[in-house]
């Protein structure tokens, strides 16, 4: 058994989970919703095993390091964290349908990683040979994943809110009746960001600590650093917006979506369009 095989199984599991959630949405059959969650958790367990196995495989190759060192490994880890945060929110707040808007993010990541990225295990370049790599990457990606979940919830919020505006009779029928009430969605959005924001803060601080240890500057306005700060500003604005009249509801949902767009740019866009210290090798 290889980690590569297990990652393929994971991808299929997330696809099956997504289909189950969509079917749940269309049919309102609760057992389909349960199936969506269970398959996603199964995928999470398999993916956990796959990541552990890849870690071991790197040691077998004599270049042992945590599987967080290149774009492929980071995308796989991102998918893992998205399902992990989804599992947390699902088990804690029991609004299963959110899976239909969150699992696709994880599936997208896995599919891109498995089909479009080079999967080889490479030795660590000197710049990454540090324990800080683990702390920095884990905190950042858990934060990113919470923002992904918040973005999924915000999309649901906007769909539901728009629908309710157009349909003042209040008898929301069809698919809309499957969505949690907008108040609940607004609250869940806030809770997801409450998970993500401290983690992003920790991610930025561990990054600064590492930079200071390795280069002697904790902050150098490198594009990646700057974009992580931009993301931090957007979510800080979100958190303050909740206490300001006129900024709750739709505007908060939009801020959450913009925040996730900035997160994705920070993660991928900076590497594709700008130059800097975080190059994922090549």
């Amino acid at each position, binding site marked *: 058994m290889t980690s590569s095989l297990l990652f393929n199984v994971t991808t299929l599991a997330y696809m099956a989970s997504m289909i189950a959630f969509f079917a749940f949405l269309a049919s309102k059959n609760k057992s389909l919703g349960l199936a969506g969650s269970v398959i996603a958790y199964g995928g999470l367990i398999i993916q956990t095993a796959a990541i552990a196995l890849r870690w071991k495989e790197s040691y077998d190759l004599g270049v042992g390091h945590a599987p967080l060192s290149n774009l492929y490994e980071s995308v796989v880890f991102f998918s893992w964290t998205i399902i992990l945060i989804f599992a947390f929110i699902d088990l804690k707040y029991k609004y299963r349908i959110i899976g239909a808007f969150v699992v696709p993010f994880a599936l997208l990541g896995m599919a891109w990683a498995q089909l479009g990225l080079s999967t080889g295990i490479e*030795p660590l370049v000197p710049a990454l040979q540090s324990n800080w790599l683990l702390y920095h990457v884990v905190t950042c990606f858990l934060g990113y994943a919470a923002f992904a979940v918040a973005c999924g919830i915000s999309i649901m919020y906007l769909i539901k809110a728009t629908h309710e505006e157009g349909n003042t009779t209040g008898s929301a029928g069809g698919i809309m009746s499957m969505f949690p009430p907008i108040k609940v969605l607004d609250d869940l959005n806030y809770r997801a960001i409450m998970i993500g924001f*401290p983690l992003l803060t920790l991610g930025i601080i561990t990054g600064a600590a590492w930079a200071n240890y390795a*280069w*002697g*500057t904790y902050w150098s306005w490198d594009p990646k650093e*700057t974009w992580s700060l931009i993301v931090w500003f957007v979510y800080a*604005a979100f958190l303050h917006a909740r206490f300001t009249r006129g900024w709750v509801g739709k505007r908060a949902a939009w801020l959450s979506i913009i925040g996730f767009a900035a997160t994705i740019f920070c993660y991928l866009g900076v590497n594709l369009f700008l130059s800097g210290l975080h190059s994922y090798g090549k």
Partner: protein
Amino acid sequence: MATTERNFVHTVWDFFCSLKLTIFLLISLALSSIIGTVLPQGQLPPEYLAQISPVKLQIYSKLGFFDMYHSWWFIALLYIFSLNLISCSIKRLPHVIKFITEPTLVLGETMRNTFTLKKEIAFSTPIDAGQEKLAAFLGKEFAAPVISEHSGEYHLFSQKSAWSRLGVYVVHLSILVIFVGAIIGSLFGYKGFVTIVEGSSISSVEARNGKQIPLGFDLRCDQFSVAFYNTGAPKEFKSILTVLENGQPIKDFTNVRVVVNDPLTYKGITFYQSSYGQATEGGEHYFTMTPRTGGNTERFALRDGDAVTFKDGTTFKLLEATPEVRQFMPEFSGPAARVEVTIKGKSPQTFIVLKNYPEINAQRGDELTYNYEGSNAKMYTGLQVAKDPGVWIVWVGCTLMIVGIFVAFFMSHKRVWVIVSKGHARMYGNASKNQAGFQMQFEELAEKFTNLKI
């Protein structure tokens, strides 16, 4: 006149205290920060200067876009942001502290009605005995209560983590602490760079602003080396450094191994492995030439870019050399040189001559075979140098921020009141955050409350 002045002061004060300003500043900082990630910062590369129009260049320079994060307007935004933080805290903190130190011990009628969490029980024992039992109950199950008597009733008040209301102010303070650390670092510290050729030492470094800064001691590079993985990817950049004072090596700072991610710190100044290269002085490369048909092997020395012409008219030019070829040709290791050989009357050929593989060199079919014997060239190591006396303040700020965010997000001020009247008692609960979580706790408490034997 006085009133308009006061009005004006009030307006300014309200402006700096407003949450709308906070949101505006956060979004402005986010948007403006993008500029510096899109436009080149600092020294502009010539390719960029060639493609930008002079008008644009002038406008961008005027606006400070090429050193954006230090431009007057960006710094001004940060100052207004700090003022906003301070004003908000000054405005709200006294209320919060009053709320914590002077809690509502007696729960009035109107407040009671606003609470959703409530429970009522009846009991037959006299009110004083009931009050004592309930106080003991609260103390055991929640927190020791403060008891007040009010118009024939007893009000028992207990609270948990009242100080958690301060979490958000700790976060605000932490940002200011980080700013202070950064300012101290920029005033009293410096960032610099220095290169040291193997075997030599330096006593000063060049700061970013071009100034030479004396270190107060000498730093010698004993050796520099690079190791590569089999794939040709770099594995380790290593300098062996020695600190000298008055020409004498310092114990514990002799032959220190400095690699990327493992710097050397001496007297508050830290040296980080950053770059390397081949020193130009003494850079002679040695080659041999042997005619295939027999004849004497000829040994000669060349510098980068130099050429030699042999008796038969063949020209041999050294283009470049490396002490480790693995990074370019993973299947080989050791020193190698890239050379250009022009046989008389033919076009020039470029190829690699290896030191450790003479048999490979001989595989070339030409009349003359060449070997590379290595070089007396020395390596130099490039070190980033930093002194930052403000950095520990920044870490204090970061720690405060993490603690503050944790408290602000995940802890809440929980309050429980029990009003004991003749024959019955009513319990009320309220939490500053996460009502849903507190509701469960309250319901558990309420169940015990109901089952209480008074």
